[in-house]
C-alpha cells in the first residue's frame, strides 16, 4: 500500500472516528434532555394530581360552607321564630310563617349557590389538572423526542463514519468492502430491518 493510500486511509479513519464521536456526543445531550423531560413529566403529573385533589377540596369547602349556611339559616329561622313569639305573634301561621319560609328559601338558594360554586371549583380544578396533564403528556412527548434524537445522533455518527470510510476507500475490490458498502448504503437509505436500528452504544 503506497504512502498516499496509507495517508488517505489514515485521514479517512480519522474522519470516520470524528463522525462517530460527534454522533455519540449528540446522543448524550439528547439523553440528558430526555431525562429532564421525563422529570418534568413526572412533576407535571404530580401537579395534575394535586390540582385534581383541589377539586375535591372545593367540594369539601362548599360542603363546609353549606353546613355553615345551614347553621346560619337555622339560627335565622330560630331568631325569627323567637322574635315573633316575643312579639306575641304565632310563628306557625300567616305572614310570620311566610316570612320564615322566605328566609328558608333564601337560605336554600344560598346553599344551592354554594354547592354550585363547589361544583364550579371542582370543574375548574379538573380543568387545570387536565391542562397540567396535557403539559405532562407534552413533556413525555418531548422526552420521547429526545430519546429518539439520541438514537438518531448515534446513527448519524455511524452513518457519517461509514460514509467517510467509503469515500476514503474508493472502490474496494473485495467482497467484504462490497458487502460493507452495500450494508452502508442500505443503512444510508434507511432500509427497515437494518441491524443498525437495533444498535445500542
Amino acid at each position, binding site marked *: 500500500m503506497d504512502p498516499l493510500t496509507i495517508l488517505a486511509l489514515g485521514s479517512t479513519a480519522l474522519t470516520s472516528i470524528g463522525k462517530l464521536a460527534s454522533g455519540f456526543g449528540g446522543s448524550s445531550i439528547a439523553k440528558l434532555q430526555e431525562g429532564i423531560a421525563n422529570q418534568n413529566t413526572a412533576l407535571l403529573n404530580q401537579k395534575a394530581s394535586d390540582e385534581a385533589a383541589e377539586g375535591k377540596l372545593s367540594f369539601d369547602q362548599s360542603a363546609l360552607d353549606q353546613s355553615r349556611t345551614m347553621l346560619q339559616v337555622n339560627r335565622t329561622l330560630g331568631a325569627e321564630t323567637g322574635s315573633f*313569639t316575643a*312579639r*306575641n*305573634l304565632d310563628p306557625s*301561621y*300567616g*305572614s310570620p310563617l311566610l316570612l320564615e319560609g*322566605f328566609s328558608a328559601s333564601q337560605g336554600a338558594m344560598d346553599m344551592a349557590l354554594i354547592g354550585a360554586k363547589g361544583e364550579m371549583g371542582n370543574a375548574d380544578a379538573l380543568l387545570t389538572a387536565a391542562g397540567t396533564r396535557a403539559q405532562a403528556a407534552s413533556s413525555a412527548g418531548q422526552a420521547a423526542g429526545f430519546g429518539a434524537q439520541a438514537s438518531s445522533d448515534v446513527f448519524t455518527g455511524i452513518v457519517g463514519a461509514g460514509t467517510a470510510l467509503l469515500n476514503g476507500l474508493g472502490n474496494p475490490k473485495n467482497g467484504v468492502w462490497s458487502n460493507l458498502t452495500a450494508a452502508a448504503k442500505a443503512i444510508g437509505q434507511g432500509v427497515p430491518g437494518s441491524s443498525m436500528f437495533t444498535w445500542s452504544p
Partner: protein
Amino acid sequence: MAVNVEVAKTAFSAGEVSPALRARSDLSKQQGGLWFLENMVVLLEGGVTRAPGTQMVLQLTPGHAYVGIPFRFAGSGSNAYAIIIGNGVAQFILGNSVVVIGGGNNNPYTVAVPYTDADLGGAGATTPGVSNLRYAVSGNVVYLFCDGYQPQTLTREADNSWVLTPYITQPAVPAPQGGCLAPVANENIDPLETIGISATQGSITLTASAAFAGAAATVPNGFQAGHVGSVWRLDESSLTLTPEWTADETISPSTTRLSSSTYLGGMSSPANVFDGNFATYASQTAASGWVGCTLATPASIFNVTVNCPSGAGYFVLQAYPISFVLYAKKGSPANQTDGIVLASGSITDGTVQSITLTSNDQLTQFTSFWIVWAGVLGGNTISIAEVNFEGLASTTAATLRRWNGNVYQALNSGTSGANPPVHTSGQVLSGIGGIQWLYRNRGYGFVQITAVTNSTTATATVLERLPDSIAAQPTANWWPSAWDGVQGWPDRCFIFQNSLWAFLKNRFWRTQPGTFNNWDIPDPTSAQSGIEGGLISPIGALPWVEWPMANTSFLAIGTRDEEWVFAGQDPFSALSVENLDPYPSRQTGSAVHIPAAAEGGLVTINRARDRAMLMSLSFNGVMPQIEPQELTISARHILGPEGGGALGVSRQQDPNCINWFWCANGLLVGNTLMKEQQINGWHRHPQHAATDSGVNGIVTIPSSDEGVSWTYLLTTRTINGAQAQFVELMQPFFQPADTDAPTAAGAWFLDCALQYSGAPVTTLGGLNHLIGQSVGVHADGCTYLNPDGSLPVVNASGEITLSRPTQNAVVGLPKPYRARLLPLDLTTQKGSTVGKKQKANHLFLRVMYAAGGMIAVNPDEGGIAEPLEEPGVMTYGAPVPLRTGIIRTPGLDVPHADQTIVELTGDDTMPFTLLGVDPDVIISEDD
C-alpha cells in the same frame, strides 16, 4: 233651739252616685253627686237639665232584634244615615227621615240581609241582647262582618238604592291591579294532595286527589259544604311546563281553524269549504264572489289558505289570474267589501292548487272572516274545496313564556326581541317585528267555590286567571281559604290606617294599605303586602278579639282578658310583619260589644258588663299604651244592679258629650264625660213604665246641619196590649228661640212622640202607634191637660181630641224627671248635723230656662211635692215664659227628719235646667 244653716249646692257634675258613696262626704265626687238623677242629664257646666224626648221615626215589625249602624258617605249635604238592620232587612234613615220607596209610595225602602234574630241579639243569641254584627265604613260602602256569615258589603248607590253583595266577588278589574284578593291560610305541603282544574277562567270544576280528602289532610275531609263562598289560591303545578322567556327567540304561536256554521257569501254549499274534505267543494258561476263565516266569539286571524277541489287541480279551468282578498269585521258584514282588508294575493298559474294569504293584523279580534275572489272570466265556474282561516281563538292552546314570575302569551308571530315583558296587565309589543305579549297570570290565581259535589270535587268561579300548567297537571301548590264556613268567617272588623282589618278569635288579617279588599301577600317583608297572623298571649290568656278600635296612631284590641296595643316596634313606620309588635297593655278584660270613641280613647264595657271604662290611647314617648280608667267608680250601681248589665254604648258628642248605654233590662243610662273638665256624671233614664218600655239599641250620627249629634233609640214598648218596636230620634237639648224672652215654645219632653204644625185643630191624628195610651201634649208652648186634669187618651183611630185648638203640638208618652240631692251633711260648731232633726221650709233654686216642676223636702218622711209655679196649663194663646235665675220656693210643708233631702220632680212638658240649690236648713238642736 234651732239653728239655721244655708248651704249652696252649685254643681252636680258627678250625677247620680252609688249608694255606697252617699256617706263619703269627704269626697269631692260626693259634693257634686246626686242621690237620684232620672231623665235628666249632667251638663258640662255642672248643672242638670231635662233629657229631651224622642220622635217616633220608624215603627218596626215587632218580635225581632234590631241593630243600628251609623253610616256617613262622602257626599255633600245630608249624608249621614242610621241603618237599621233586623227582621231580614236593612232600612235606612237619612237625617231624621226614613228613606222610602220612590214614586209616592211611603213604604220604607229595604234591602234583604241574611242575619237572623239570634245573630242580632234576639231569641237564640249566645249573649241575649248582644249583636254579633260588626261593621266598618269607607266611602259609600259598609263592610258587614258577622259570626257564621261570609262578609258582605252594603253599597250606597243612591238614597233609595243600596246593594248587598258578598264581600268576595268577581273583581271588576283584573288582578293584581284591582279586584278582590282574599286571604288564604298556610300552603299545602303534601305533594299527594293535588287539585286539578277544568279551565283557567270562568266557571270551572276543581278535582282533587284522594289524599286531599283525608281526615288528616291539609283541609281535613276535603271539600265541604261550608267551603261554598270561600276563596282558594292555586299556584303553578310545574314551572317546567312554561318555558322561560329568552331573547331573540322566533315564536310562532299555535293557531286553530276558525269556522262556524254561520256562512257568508253566495257560493253554493258553503259548508263544504269548512268541512275538511277536499273532495267536496263550494262553487259559483260568477266573475267575483265571497265566502266566509261569522263566529260567536271574537278571534284574531293569522292567515287563510284557499284550496282547490281534490283531483281537479284548478280553481277555475279557463281563467287566470284570479285575485283573492282576505276581509274581516267585528260583527256581520253587509256585503263582500264591508270589512277590513287583511291580506290579498292572486293565482296566475293554472297548476297551482292553493293560495295562502298572511294577515297584516294578527292582534285585532274579529267575528267575521271571508275571502273575496275576482277575475273569473264570464261564464266560468270557480270551485273552492277548503278555506282555512287560521288564528287565535279563545280555545286555542296559548303559546306561553315566563318572566319574573309572570306568564305571558304570544299573540302573534315574531321575535321576542331584547326586552322581556314586565307588564302586569293588557298587551305590550316587544318591538318592531316583535311579539305582542298578553299578560296571562302571575304564577297563581284565585277561585271562589260555588258548590261542593263531594269531598274531592267542587265547582268554582275563577276570580283571578289560573296558571295554564294546572290545567295540564294538577297542582299540589295550593292555599286553602283562610275564611270559610268550616273554620269560620271573621266576625270583627275595623278600618285603620287606610286598611281593612278583620279578626276571628285570635287571628287577624290586614289588607294591603290603600285597599279594602286586597289581602294578598306577594312579599311578606313588604309593608305594602297584606298581613296575616295569630295572637298569642305572653301570659297564657285567651287573646280572642272582642273589639278592635283605633285612634290615629295605633289600633287597640280588647279581648276577654286583656287590652292589646297593635302597633309597630317603630310606631312611626308603616306596619309590616317585620315590625308589627302587638302586646297586651292592660288586663281589664272586655265584654263583647262595640266601644265608643270618646275623649281621645275608647269607652268600653268590662266583661261583667257592670262597669264602664275609658281606655285612653296614649304614647308615652317610648311606646303606645292603653290607660284604663273606670268611669263607673262613683256609680257602681248604675249599670249592673240598676240596668242588669250594659249591652252597648254610643257616644253623643254634641252638645253634651254623653255616652249612652243601653242595658239588659231596657234601662237607658247616660254618662256625661269630659275628662279635661273632670266631668263624669251619671244619669238614669227609666222608660215609660206604663208601656213597659225599654231601650234595646242606640245609634248616633251627625245631624244634617252638623250642629249636634242625633241619637236614635231602638225601643220596645207595649202598646194597646201588644209589643211594639220603634226607632226614635232623641230630640235636641232645649234651647229657646229667643234667649232674651225665652218661652216653652218648641219644647219636646215626650217620648215616642209626633209633632203637629199647621192650622189650628182640636183633633190630632196619626197616633196609631200610641193607641190606648195616655199621652202628654205640649201644645203651643204649654202643657195640655184635659179639663178634668187628666191626660188625653189616644183612641182606636189614633186620634186625640183637645178642648181647644192648637196649631203646634207634640204628642207622646210622658217623661217624668227627678233630681234628688244627697243628704246635706253639715258641720256646725257643735259638730255634724247627721242624726239631728232637721228640715228646710224654703230654699232657693238656681235655674235656667225653667218652668213647671215640683219641689219636695224630706219626701221619704212625708214631705209633699209642691209646684214651683203654675205650669201653664190651659194658657193657650201664649207659650209659657221660662225663668232664668233664682226661684224662691213657697213655704213648704216639711216634716223633720234625720237628714235634709231635697228632691226636684216633674211630669209636665216644660223645660227645666237646675244649676244649683240653696236650702235654708233648720236644725233642731237637742240641748
